[in-house]
């Protein structure tokens, strides 16, 4: 019987109906009655053609935006990581910024690893980025020899599982044009490999050496395993999906980052679309606001419609509009007008503002239908 209504009622609703009807053990007659009522309701609830749905969506974000807090830092739930939330984060998402102000990954692990805290901690240590600074007690500048002596912190090295050989190999890869050797007292000696070494070079090298990447995944400065349900998830400060997904323990189907661009470039545009929905929803619910999922879906669909992530900015969605006047009304009008004059652009006046500028009805809602009544002319 349900099949008869397919095409008349949305499939998802029908599926849900089937499940509920089976659960409640409806009789055939009841089923038919219920389905008819459902069809009636569905028709009533359907959106009107011509509805200016874009404006409604914009309003649904603009109005709650005024109620959001500006508090940039908040504690994300149980964890102790700082995350940008509230209005600044929402702006960041809609801008589609390349750099996120607080990049974070949620790293999920595969079956055997995700329940054992020891294994989780091991993976966490693997992910965390280690810099030379963390392996050293101090960095000494030897002014006479014009070199740097790094006093190693053996304890830390042992904890992080770094051998001396590993360290030297890593340094050799990362520090170019630097002579690296081991001093007799166990210190690492670094000297710029230049013909004439000035003290400035040595100082520069010292700063560079401190930040030299030794082990882990670049960009991950903090890791925090937390319990979520009955498994452990590693939250990280800093994001590097590309390298993280390569680890065999990591569940690549669930691990996500909060950087939209990273997701778009590594997991593709559909993943980016989902990410926008997920992130925007997170901000809104965290602020105790309620915005229907449709609006969030709508914006993320628009932002990703061309296959690239476009922001809601003058260079993004608005900037790529066809209409010259629509672009000019938004921002930098002169640039658009002069550009249009050079290229001989045409404005076909098929969106809203242009028609407002010209005092014409807009092609939305009641301005959409082109009905003309034929009237008898008076003799």
């Amino acid at each position, binding site marked *: 019987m349900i099949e008869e209504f397919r095409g008349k009622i949305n499939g998802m609703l029908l599926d849900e109906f089937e499940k509920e009807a089976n659960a409640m053990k409806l009789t055939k007659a009841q089923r038919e009655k219920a389905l008819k009522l459902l069809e009636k309701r569905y028709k009533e609830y359907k*959106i009107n053609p011509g509805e200016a749905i874009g404006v409604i969506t914009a309003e649904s974000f603009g109005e709650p935006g005024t109620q959001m807090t500006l508090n940039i830092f908040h504690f994300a739930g149980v964890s102790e990581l700082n995350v940008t939330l509230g209005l600044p984060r929402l702006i960041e998402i809609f801008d589609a910024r390349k750099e996120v102000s607080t990049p974070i990954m949620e790293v999920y692990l595969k079956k055997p690893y995700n329940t054992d805290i020891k294994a989780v901690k091991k993976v966490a240590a693997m992910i965390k980025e280690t810099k030379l600074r963390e392996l050293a007690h101090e960095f000494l500048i030897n002014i006479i020899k014009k070199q740097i002596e790094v006093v190693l912190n053996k304890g830390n090295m042992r904890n992080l599982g770094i051998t001396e050989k590993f360290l030297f190999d890593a340094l050799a890869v990362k520090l170019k044009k630097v002579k690296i050797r081991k001093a007799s007292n166990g210190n690492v000696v670094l000297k710029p490999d230049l013909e004439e070494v000035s003290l400035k070079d040595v100082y520069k090298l010292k700063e560079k050496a401190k930040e030299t990447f030794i082990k882990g995944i670049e960009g991950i400065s903090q890791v925090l395993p937390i319990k979520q349900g009955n498994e452990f998830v590693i939250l990280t400060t800093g994001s590097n999906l590309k390298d993280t997904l390569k680890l065999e323990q990591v569940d690549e189907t669930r691990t996500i980052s909060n950087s939209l661009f990273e997701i778009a470039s590594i997991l593709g545009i559909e993943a980016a679309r989902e990410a926008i929905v997920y992130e925007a929803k997170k901000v809104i619910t965290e602020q105790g606001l309620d915005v229907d999922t449709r609006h969030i879906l*709508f914006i993320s669909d628009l932002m990703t419609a061309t296959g690239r992530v476009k922001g809601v900015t003058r260079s993004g969605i608005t900037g790529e509009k066809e209409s010259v006047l629509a672009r000019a009304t938004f921002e930098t009008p002169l640039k658009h007008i002069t550009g249009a*004059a*050079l290229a*001989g652009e045409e404005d076909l006046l098929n969106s809203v503002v242009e028609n407002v500028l010209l005092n014409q009805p807009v092609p939305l809602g009641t301005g959409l239908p082109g009905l003309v009544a034929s009237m008898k002319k008076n003799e």
Partner: protein
Amino acid sequence: MIKMETEHIYKKVEKIVFGFLSPKQIKKMATVKVVTPELYDKDGYPVDGGLMDTRMGVIDPGLRCPVDGKKLKECPGYFGYIELARPVIHIQYTKIILDLLRSTCGECGRILMEESEIEETIKHLDCVEKESGLNIKRKKIKAIIASLKTVKKCPHCRAKQYNIKIEKPLTFIENDKKLTPIDIRSRFEKTPDRDVEVIGLNPRVARPEWLILTLLPIPPVTMRPSITLDTGERSEDDLTHKLSDIVRINQRLFENINAGAPEVIVEDLWDLLQYHVTTYFDNTVSQIPPARHRSGQALKTLTERIKSKEGRFRYNLAGKRVNFAARTVISPDPEIAFNEVGVPRAIANELTVPERVNEWNLERLKEFIKRGPEEYPGANYVIRPDGKKKKISDETKEQLLEELQPGYLVERHIMDGDIAIFNRQPSLHRMSIMSHKIKILPYKSFRLNPAVCTPYAGDFDGDEMNLHIPQTEEARAEAEILMHVQTQIITPKNGTNIIGCLEDAISGNYLLTKGLEFNKDEAVELLMSVGIKDIPKFGKIVNGKEIFSALLPNNFEYIGKSRDDEDVIIKNGKLIKGIIDGASIGEENGNLIRKLHRDYGEDKTLELMGLMFKLGIKTLLYCGFTSGLADTDLNPELKSKIQKMLNDAEKQVEELIRKYKAGQITPMSTKTLEESLELMILQVLNKVRNKIGEVVAANAPEKNSFIIMSRSGARGNVLNLAMMSAVVGQQSLKGKRIENGYGDRTLSVFNKNDLSPRARGFIRSSYKKGLDPVEFFFGSMTGRDSLMDTALRTPKSGYLYRRLSNALQDLKIEYDYTVRDANKAIIQFNYGDDGMDVSKSEGGTINIKNLIKEVILK
């Protein structure tokens, strides 16, 4: 009978093409060649060939335009032109001029590309434009220009190419020699049409040589009207000033060239001409001193008139001024309906509705005219079928009455029942502009029912609102069908009801349904005062539930929960069980209202909501409801209990600090010791505050007004009461306790590094008891912080909203239910995957479980 307009000429602009005015076109469209900088002759009449030449349009009332014979306001104005003695560069196009110079040959003017390559590039660019749009094409062109820059030899004439530099703002230098505009222009003239397409120019509308001006169009006088000051003196527009500078210098340059003046002088004048033309286009170019008035104020020339918020686009074109509008302060009136607006008499005398005269209303409209503009309800204007507008006054009254016949329009005063559009800024959502029925009331403020404060986000602390009167039948129909208050009960944001009962209306219904009892007479009187005429049969004693039920339709069925999760059951329009509170009739989550809305439609819902609202208020009027200082009193026992709780908490904190100092605290991961301690202390203090809140609420008497308000969901919560009567609690900034400022302490009355609650912003006093200076200071810190937050947030979220609405404004649902943008590109195949409207459905979905239950129950 006078013939009515049977045919309307419906003009529509189909498209706008952007491009340059070629010198030929400039000449063709001009009516005047401007040759003299003088504006008026001795008699104050515009000089022929001057900048105010009447052939460029009329700005004086009474004069007729010599070109089209029309009057002021009818004549659009006409362009003139100046012939420049020497060509000058157009400041807005220096960048493209430089690009052109760099990518074309200095000798033959061809683009620095092989013939075959030119064809290929153009084909490729066309492809790119078709597939990915103009933006991408522009990026490609940029790369091409960059590559042409390095070509050393022209592939066409084998001439050597030199590096061309620009010395900002408008000097071009080739090989250490200055290129004059004449040089540049003669180069550009040689470039064939096909070649310029490579640079992205469309040669049909933009030849490169047109970027160097030889003729300057003079905008019509109507675009730069002069104002006559009170003294009778004329004050010219900034543009006229600038143009007269240009004409003056231009004439001098002509004379000097003709007289064979030395090249140095000519060059100087030429530079001066370039300066004036540049500042005429843009007076904000860096490195060029802006042209100023004699007073020192910079002139506002063409560019500044177009751009920014106050520019032509955003100020005059995207937003327009209107007539038939009013604005005044708003004040509440719970006696009027939700969809009414009280309009003061003084405003009603000014705002009008046009009414077409026909045989049936002729006499009625004559009465309006008789009363005239002063008396209410009268009329202000009569419009004849030919469009002539006549003001009604004591002198014209008689004549107008005589000539009035079908076909005329009478602009009569607004009256009760007319449709008005009511708005409060900022118009953040569509409920910020709704239509109301007018109700004329005395005094000077707009009156609205407090229930519609929520959609407008207004209050009565001095807010002002705007009222507009739609003037056509179409506008009125749209306002009534699409914008009426009842059509906006449910917000499209999340599908909840934005209009509902609030504050006293909720408290009243809560008290009424909780167990108030009346005798029969009182009950009838109460219902009558609400406006119920159809009074059910009552017994001697009537309880509140029965009274509430009298409002409901007889076949209304409802099962829901109250705020404290008790069942609320309505059967056959009778409230059987439960208390009506915010969860049933409040805003946002008024489930009873949602059910009414679905079962009986919006009109009936609004009516019933109005009745409930009134019933709530009238109930309170009957039984009395107030809150006073006594409501915050605590009995001595409770007081000492609370003090003990606070002392305990403080002791706990002390213990934590002692442990911390002894090094016995284990830090949480990724946190330092100090941060962990802070977190623990904060937890202890917040816990005690919440506990005290509970204790206060539990011990407060049933009839405590604050408790009634917070239980019913009318206003406030228990913590607010606790803050007044028991303890204010921890003041926090950025989620932390107040941090030490300078000198390791918060205030100089404390010891250094004092971690105790009091020293870090814990307010132990209650508002009733009063805060001591230290506590008050901490309290004002958080107060200031939240003020800052609001002040900084508003512009940020405003800008986000502007960007969103600009990006999304032309997306709409098509007839096939797809969502598309202005170019018909599909964004969604089915809106929200199921095509349902959030503001029509049950919070965005259909609740199938409930639907099945409904069917079973039937």
